[in-house]
């Protein structure tokens, strides 16, 4: 079997480690997602809450 075959976990680690390199992605959002994954907190509810708080923060920041 080819050595480059990855397990599910390796694929996820790989993806989140390189998330900030996705072209044109919002770096702050990408960093938050990466942090959630690394802390084992990557769930639908947590992501939804995080997106809400990031929006609120941005609206308040520039007002």
């Amino acid at each position, binding site marked *: 079997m080819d050595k480059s075959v990855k397990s*599910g976990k390796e*694929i996820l680690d790989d993806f989140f480690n390189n*998330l900030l390199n996705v072209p044109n*992605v919002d770096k702050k959002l990408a960093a938050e997602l990466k942090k959630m994954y690394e802390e084992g907190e990557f769930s639908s509810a947590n992501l939804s809450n995080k997106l809400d708080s*990031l*929006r609120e923060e941005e609206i308040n920041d520039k007002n």
Partner: protein
Amino acid sequence: MIKIKSFLIKGFRGIKEQLSLELNSKSALLFGENATGKSSITDAIEWFYKNAIKHLSDEEIDRKGGLTALRNTSIADTEKSSVEICFTDTSLDSLKSISLRRANPEVENSNNSDVFTKYIEDSENENLTLRYEDLTEFVLSTKGEKLDFLSNVIGFNDVSNTRAILRKSVNEIKNSLKIKNYENEISNREGQIMTVLSERVISDEQYLRKINEIIKPLELEKSMSKLEDIDHLLSLFKKSDDTVVIDMRAFYYDLINTIKGIENRIGNLLDLYKVYYQLFEKIVQDIETLKKITLDILLEEGRRVLKGSVVEKDECPLCLQVKSKEELLKEIELRLKSLESIRKEKSLLDNAKNDVQKALDGINGLIAGIQSNKHFSSQENQPIRNFVKVLMDYMKLITQELDIDILKNQKIKTKDELLLDITKLNEISDFCEKRSEFLSSQIKGNKILEIQDKITLSRQAYYDIKRLKKEKQILEKQKESLELIFNAFVKKQKEELEIFINSFSKEIDEYYQYLHPGEKVDRIEIKTTEKEDELTGISIDFHFLNKEVSPPQKYLSESHLNSLGIVFFLVSIKAFNKRNRFFILDDIISSFDSNHRKRLSDLFLEIFSDYQIILMTHERNWFDYVRHLVRGRSNWLINAINWSESKGTHLNETLVDLKKTIWQKLADNDKMGLGNIIRIYLEGLLKEMAEEVDVYVKYRSNEINEDRMSNELLTELKSKINKQPCKDLFGPIINKMIPSVFVGNKGSHDSSFDPGIGECRAFWQDVIELEKLFYCDVCNAVISIKYYDKVGKTIRCKGGHLSYDWMN
């Protein structure tokens, strides 16, 4: 990686006494006629790792008392059934047993270390055993089952879950953009500015210019140069009863916009409710199963507690009934697994309910905004209060439907039964417009109030537009980023799966071609099937008579399907077995013809030479072929499995075992049965010598080929030796042994043969002398014609430590 050093099975399945095999990491070729209990070995090893035996139904071994089915039926209740395995890593050695305490079977592992627990967990998904009946399991499973199997083994479930979370998030943001309908909201406010200022305003500059134009009659010293100046100007206007009119007009304008927003949100709310309703209706069909998932939390908690180190005793922590911890854990896991499908559907229902609730919250937020305005309670706004009440009752109605407990009430209202009379929204908008016009007529002619009115209303709309545009921009930015992340994820998942599938396909095809060269099947490929960009399954495609076809069961014979099954098993071992370097093949070749059997043996020895293989068969020809292949290989053991009423399934004792017994009996002066044991040992030794130095005996058919007796073998050995230059070395001892009573004819292994201990001791010395001439202590093997030196004309052992002049 781990190999087996030895195993010892007692009182398990067909094994009554004990079956022990000292492998020392070697492979084993075991012959056993049908019904001698070969599968007891496979069962024991499978149970050691998986705590279950797949071919026995779950009920049979998992229900209370089912474990007793694993115990040999004739052992006493006081005896334990056990499987003890020693490994190349001794920290993993363990004895797993089933004992009967108060008639309840209890499972115990002697090794409870974290290292061992982790090893067993890691081994759970590894392919370690293959039986004939399992051969085509993967090949014949559905596409979805194949995907589930591979996803589970390679951990792709986590990848799929992460993808689902990202997809849901992207959809939520898209939905949010749709519900908030920013274009409409902005357009409404732009219309409001148009009405008030009779001009379309698209920038701060343009807005300020228009305001400066409006306030010209006021002849102010300073014109408005920024938006804050307008706020300051409004604060300078005197507060009077008339200014309340302007304030109220702003309230009506705002309400008209809010009502438009509410109408849009109610449409979306009903769409979401429809999804909820459909899921509700589907689940309610299987309400009995759903009821069982109310125990989910209890079962999950039970599993957590049992997996931890809190419970040490073998008893249920709740009812304190005596029960093996391992068995209890297994029962809980089975119950949780049986609820998996309904749990998934319930989770979808919960998500849909959550979506409806969120939509309700959004509308309730807008209603709260209306209620908090100071003009809401004004006497003249009773119709607005009535409208808000209708709206709140409507929200309550939907909330009530959401609150219906699916386990108690099995009916909820349909979307159509929950439609809101839209004319009520139009009526209240008309009311607001008329009231606003009326108020406008009251200030007509008062230039200052007219200016104040225009600035107040346009400012409110203009600020709303700016806020809405900003919100929209932030939400769209998040949507774009999440879409980029989701797309990158999908790409990554596909790439990695492709690498896996290609690699997997390549090896499956390679091994299959090895077994079936030049036949009609080639280019076997594992392919993914997708629906709406989601992986839905895995299929096996191949070329049959140069045409791409699928599925295999439509085109291939039983033996070809079995080949595919074996090939899949072997490729899986290479791909997924990360801890164990051994596997067991239990009678897998029944449907193969002799040519494919040979090819399969060659495949094992060529490609899996670094694996420890335990190969069991009842096919004599194949056994003979493989035995011939592995003859002289120090990493293979060969033995036969037998069954007797007294021992149950047992292995023939090896020469090493027999030798130990003989030495022990001689040391103990115990002559009981000793003569026969020495005879059996001599026969085994002579058979090995005859095979290695090419001693030919009279042809007999396979069934009785094994019945060669010592006198026949010694006579033929003597005949062979007499032609050799080294005959003087071997001749005396062979001549001495031939007339002995120990070298009897066929039929002499009977109870009347009862030599004394002295005779045994003397004959045993002769046997040892003969053995020393042929056996190399360094190589642990006899001299062999395979290592014949044609130049030096010598026969020798593998390492060349022992050699004799020899004419071949």
